[in-house]
């Protein structure tokens, strides 16, 4: 159950390091003593009942949420109030949201090129070429000039993935990427994520898709009431859960 047993492969550089991290919303203790190390290329699935703090945890990694105690280091940069550090981390960390959060007033292509042009200072032509390449990878290049509102949910989420990839991030955070989708659209998004995992992208996914966890995760983390309760490689996590809380959770979602 410790990191050493199932944790990062030997010799791999640590990419994200979270040490003794706590977070409160007012008086409410949402994250309690989180310790987590992610190496380059690792694929982690975080699961747990709603309100367990899993979304809050990954939102701390790109400082959409502020932690109050402990340390978060991403790619050698510590996240503090320092805006420079925050910007530097956000340039390296891509994020996909449950509700897509595409920019409705911009076309799909503009959604994808905005950040590369203004943050990476990429010439517009190059940014568009990159964007088209990633839109092809998520298999919707033909929608490039449409507005998000004209696309289905699954298509919108694939655009959101392409938009994040256009920044050439070193790690991708997925915050329940399939929860807001109609059932028939879940697969097209998961397929994209599986292929991304196959290419060696470092990924942290908050998801209830246990099939996805079995297929691609190097490690499954179970959270409950703001704590990391248990983590293990998927085979052992599903076949031999250690804690009672994990067993209860798994019995509820695996019918």
């Amino acid at each position, binding site marked *: 159950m410790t990191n050493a047993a199932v944790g990062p492969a030997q010799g791999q550089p640590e990419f994200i390091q979270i040490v003794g991290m706590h977070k409160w919303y007012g008086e409410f203790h949402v994250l309690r003593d989180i310790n987590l190390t992610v190496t380059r290329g690792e694929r982690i699935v975080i699961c747990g009942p709603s309100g367990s703090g899993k979304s809050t945890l990954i939102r701390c990694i*790109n*400082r*959409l949420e502020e932690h109050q105690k402990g340390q978060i280091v991403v790619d050698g940069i510590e996240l503090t109030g320092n805006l420079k550090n925050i*910007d530097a981390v*956000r*340039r390296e*960390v*891509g*994020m996909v*949201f449950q*509700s897509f*959060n*595409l*920019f*409705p*007033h*911009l*076309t799909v292509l503009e959604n994808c090129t*905005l*950040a590369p042009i*203004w*943050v990476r200072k990429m010439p517009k032509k190059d940014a568009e070429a990159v964007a088209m390449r990633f839109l092809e990878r998520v298999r919707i290049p033909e929608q490039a000039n449409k*507005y998000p*509102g*004209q696309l289905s949910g699954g298509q919108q989420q694939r655009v959101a993935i392409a*938009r*994040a990839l256009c*920044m050439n991030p070193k790690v991708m955070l997925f915050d329940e990427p399939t929860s807001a989708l109609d059932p028939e659209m879940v697969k097209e998004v998961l397929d994209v994520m599986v292929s991304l995992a196959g290419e060696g992208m470092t990924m942290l996914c908050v998801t209830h898709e246990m099939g996805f966890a079995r297929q691609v995760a190097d490690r499954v983390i179970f959270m409950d009431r703001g704590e990391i309760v248990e983590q293990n490689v998927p085979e052992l996590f599903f076949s031999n859960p250690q804690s009672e809380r994990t067993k209860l959770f798994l019995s509820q979602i695996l019918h």
Partner: protein
Amino acid sequence: MTSLSSPGPDLRTGAADLLPPRSQRGVVGWMRENLFSNWLNTAITLLLAYFLVRWISGFVDWAFVNAIWSVPGNNTTACREARGIGACWALINEKHRFILFGTYTYEEQWRPLIACALFIALYVVSAMKRFWNKWLMAIWAVGLVAIGVLMWGGVFGLTHVSQERWGGLPITLILSTFGIVGAFPLAILLALGRRSTGMPAIKALCVVFIELIRGVPLISILFMASVMFPLFLPDGLNIDKLLRAQVAIILFAAAYLAEVIRGGLQAIPKGQGEAADALGLSYWNKTLFIILPQALRIVIPPMVNTFIGMFKDTSLVLIIGIYDILNAAKTSIIEPAWQGFGVEAYIAVATLYFFFCFAMSKYSQKLEVDLNRGMRR
């Protein structure tokens, strides 16, 4: 028809293509439904129609049929005889140059005329989507300089016309154009400032400014600008009265507009800002490219509301002795010969105001449709 393999036309004209019964279609159907559906509705309809026809025909008689369009010299006897029966448009005929251009040197009044035409041309150009590029700023700069040169003179062989002599429509257009151009960016900054979480001092400043300015009538701000403000200035330094009124109008409009824009900012889902943050966009990039374009689109109707209100509010400058078009119209009937023909003067000015306000309103509706076209599902 007999063959099963070829579907007859009856299959294509299914139930969906049927029209509603004839009695419920078209103008007759609409009237039957809405105006004559029962005896009470029919009675109300007929009664209102009677009053409407009487009132309209009365107005047409007064404004056109019995109207007096011109009088010889300043002899308004004919007008006085027709009081209450026919309008005295001779007043407009006689005084339109004073109403439009105030006391501006008579022989030079072609200059404010061109200035007004330039203003309207600038509005029209700015309203056209194909001019929405970096040249628009340049067009405005050139246009405003040209207007300034025309109004002031003193160069290119134009005689100098001191600003105290300006009046009429150019004043109204100057005050409202610069009012909107000045208030809009200020309002955006105030709205952003009021919503900022990281800078409590700036936030407090914005809140105090907005609440203070909104808490007092425009008239009192104009009085302050014209009477009290000069008292604080050192002797000899005198900022022009029109400029002081202009600043007062900008500040006043900005406070209202800021709250309108803040409403738009609040309507943007939190996820939009988070997505921009997650992509590493800076605060100003996020605000400029993601938040404001969406927020301003939402508040086009209340923004235009504020603009129209402000356009008409410029007429309040009459209380500090500036001759905008309304004040000029009021002054045009001071002369004994023309006293008592206020209705005609005010109708003429009201028509002009309506023309501008209605154009703004219509344009904003078109703009809303245009901007939302792509975003619609």
